[in-house]
């Protein structure tokens, strides 16, 4: 196990390098020079400022040297300063935004697994019945409806017409003076819509995957044997089949994260949630290169960590495992 862990962590190194390399390449595809943006909003920026910035980003050097410099800055957790007029360190800007995005997505992830697995099992057990079809249509509708449209419709229905839930933001005004209980309840109320919609949209992939794995397991010989022996159907499904069907699902855990984080751009814009997705969108539109590069790297690293955790869970759950996937 320890061996596996070390091996798995060593594997992260090339992946991390690859992530930075791809981020760097993507940003340098863009026409124009980052420094022009940095000095653009300050019309009187002197030639000296410009030169200083060029030097800081090493823009006078060949690309591979620039990449090396950026990498060595990164290794010291120095993501540079934002090109936005506030000129703050990128890391500060990301740090204050990341907790809300992570917690939102983790809750959505938990709900996704909590709902998609039972739904998938149900569909597999009642395979090819009306229930199975209904479930598949339901989860696919969730996937197929453009999220911002559904979000607006729900905001209008629950926020304006029924006035049950707040429309946007994450806190009510003045909530800082409430007791802890009410503050938490307030936060929860604000998150009901974004999280439900995010979860609804992500059910399809996982539940269909669960369904097909379950069907596969249920057609295995040992299940047939168990049935022949007269073991009750419930026991077969929940004790024998489920255990084996769940295993491959764990690896999916890590991969669900990037999809959810990607969707946070839309959610955070429409629900005015001050998270990383919103920040990224602003950064991209304003060509705030250090910010965009910072978020890309951090976003990818989050997934990396998610995958690592998923693999570790898998290793713990399945003692046969000796090495990682691939």
């Amino acid at each position, binding site marked *: 196990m320890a061996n596996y862990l070390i091996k798995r962590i060593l594997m992260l190194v090339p992946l991390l390098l690859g992530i930075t390399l791809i981020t760097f390449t993507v940003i340098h595809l863009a026409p124009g020079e980052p420094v022009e943006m940095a000095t653009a909003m300050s019309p009187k920026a002197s030639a000296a400022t410009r030169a200083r910035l060029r030097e800081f980003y090493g823009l006078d050097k060949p690309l591979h040297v620039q990449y090396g410099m950026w990498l060595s800055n990164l290794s010291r957790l120095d993501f540079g300063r934002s090109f936005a007029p506030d000129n703050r360190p990128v890391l500060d800007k990301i740090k204050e935004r990341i907790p809300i995005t992570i917690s939102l997505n983790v809750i959505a992830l938990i709900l996704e697994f909590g709902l998609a697995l039972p739904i998938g099992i149900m569909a597999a057990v009642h395979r090819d019945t009306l229930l199975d079809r209904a479930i598949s249509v339901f989860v696919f509708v969730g996937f197929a409806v453009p999220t911002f449209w559904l979000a607006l419709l729900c905001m209008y229905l629950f926020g304006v017409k029924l006035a049950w839930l707040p429309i946007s933001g994450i806190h009510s005004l003045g*909530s800082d003076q409430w007791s802890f209980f009410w503050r938490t309840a307030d936060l929860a109320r604000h998150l009901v819509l974004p999280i439900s919609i995010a979860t609804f949209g992500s059910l399809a992939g996982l539940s269909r995957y669960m369904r097909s794995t379950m069907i596969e397991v249920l057609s295995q010989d040992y299940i047939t044997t168990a049935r022949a022996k007269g073991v009750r159907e419930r026991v077969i499904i929940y004790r024998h089949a489920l255990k084996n069907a769940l295993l491959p699902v764990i690896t999916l855990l890590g991969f669900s994260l990037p999809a959810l984080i990607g969707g946070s751009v839309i959610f955070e814009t429409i629900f*005015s949630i001050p998270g990383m997705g919103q920040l990224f969108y602003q950064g991209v539109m304003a060509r705030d290169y250090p910010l965009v590069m910072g978020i890309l790297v951090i976003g990818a690293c989050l997934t990396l960590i998610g995958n690592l955790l998923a693999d570790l869970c898998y290793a713990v759950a399945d003692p046969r495992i000796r090495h990682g996937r691939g």
Partner: protein
Amino acid sequence: MSLARTVCLLLFLFLTACGQDAPWNKAQAQGGAQFVTGSIGEPSNLIPILASDSSSSDISGLVYNGLVRYDKNLKLEGDLAQSWEVSPDGLQITFHLRRGVKWHDGHDFTSRDVLYTYRVTVDPKTPTAYAEDFKQVQSAQAPDSYTFRVTYAKPFAPALASWGMPILPAHLLEGKDITKSPLSRNPVGTGPYIFKEWIPGQRVILEANPKYWEGAPHLSRYVYRIIPDNSTMYMELKAGGVDMMGLSPVQYQRQTTGKEFLARFNKYRYPASAYTYLGYNLRLPMFQDVRVRRAITCAINKEEIIQGVLLGMGQIAHGPYKPGTWAYKPKVDNDPAYDPVNAKALLQEAGYRMGAGGILEKDGKPLSFTIMTNQGNDQRLKCAQIIQMRLKKVGIDVKIRVMEWASFLTNFIDKGKFEVVLMGWTISQDPDLYDVWHSSKTGPKELNFIHYLNPELDRLIVEGRGTFDMAKRRDCYYQIQEILAKDQPYTFLYVPDALPVVTSRIKGIEPAPAGIMHNFIKWYVD
């Protein structure tokens, strides 16, 4: 399955928590003397000379004061200056500063602050867009703590108005690098509201200044909520989460006419101090021919644009001034009227012939260009599409490109890399046009980016700003409007109406020529 049950239980909790004793219901019922406004964008920098976005200036406007300001009838009145004298030749202004005014941190406001603000603004190291007017100053002195004197080398008509610039606290900034100052996120001013907190991406909160020299504002708390999506903001307004916003014409005319809405909100409508225009890059040979520019204007039906984009709530513009102001010439003789036949004739005269595919050609090159405009302004995008259709009818092929504001300015406008832009200017109270139209302002990052060079116009602009004689100034500006109408370096399109809506809980709003915000500190709640 137990998980599903937990989820149900949680949902049940939320719903029951919506009962009467939940604090959010109480908060909503009371509302209190709290005022919430919404904004699409987040402020960038709360040191006013370092920011040029409207969100930053919305906040700065309540936190800082200038020496002078415009009153509700757009006349200059004293703000931090109690009074002032202008020397007979108009070259020297002496401001007598208000005594007993304190910065929000308790320090006394004195002439040192004014002097500092002037110096830091003209300092070449300060990255500000507001240095131009102050550069006309020959010398500035502070003879004592409550007197400030500026001298100009030659008469400068906008001089007095230029001192509306927010005054910065010298005791917190002097000798420091202003671009690195914490004040940019934590401003200290003299104004009616004191900065309390800024939660990035969520809101900025200001509290009423109890010691404000005009008296404490009635609304005790000002909340500036950042809501990046316009549809979301409108729903927040209807749900009571926002007290004021600017409506779109469609919202004003079609969505907010019900009895229920009108009982809960007051709508206002008055001409905005801004115009929208189509600007041609005059570096390009295609647009150097005045016949082409006039033809384009003739081909565009401005009435149709006002109807389609503003649902009729706006006025045709034919020059850079707001209808009804003193410099505005009501009837401009040279303005081309909507006349597609004439447009075609003018293009024919300029040497264009109909080519394949219904697009005009000259020397084998099609008459085709791209209109660029900024993102986030739905009205401009609609306007561009109407123009595109109209120009196609006379044989001009138009493409549209929408871009984010900052990169639009840097990568295209500042480099002269555009063909036609669809943009807008705010109309300042003083009619001086130097920054936008003088031929010396065509450099990078300057405002005459269409590269319009006209010695006659330059002469009139300089003459207009160089005299205090109102009749003479007006005469200059009337002539300028004729020249611009004849030359059509821009096709001036429209002056839209501002359409603010405020919840009816708020009383004391007095619409005036200056709009509704002029007496914000007198607004109150019953």
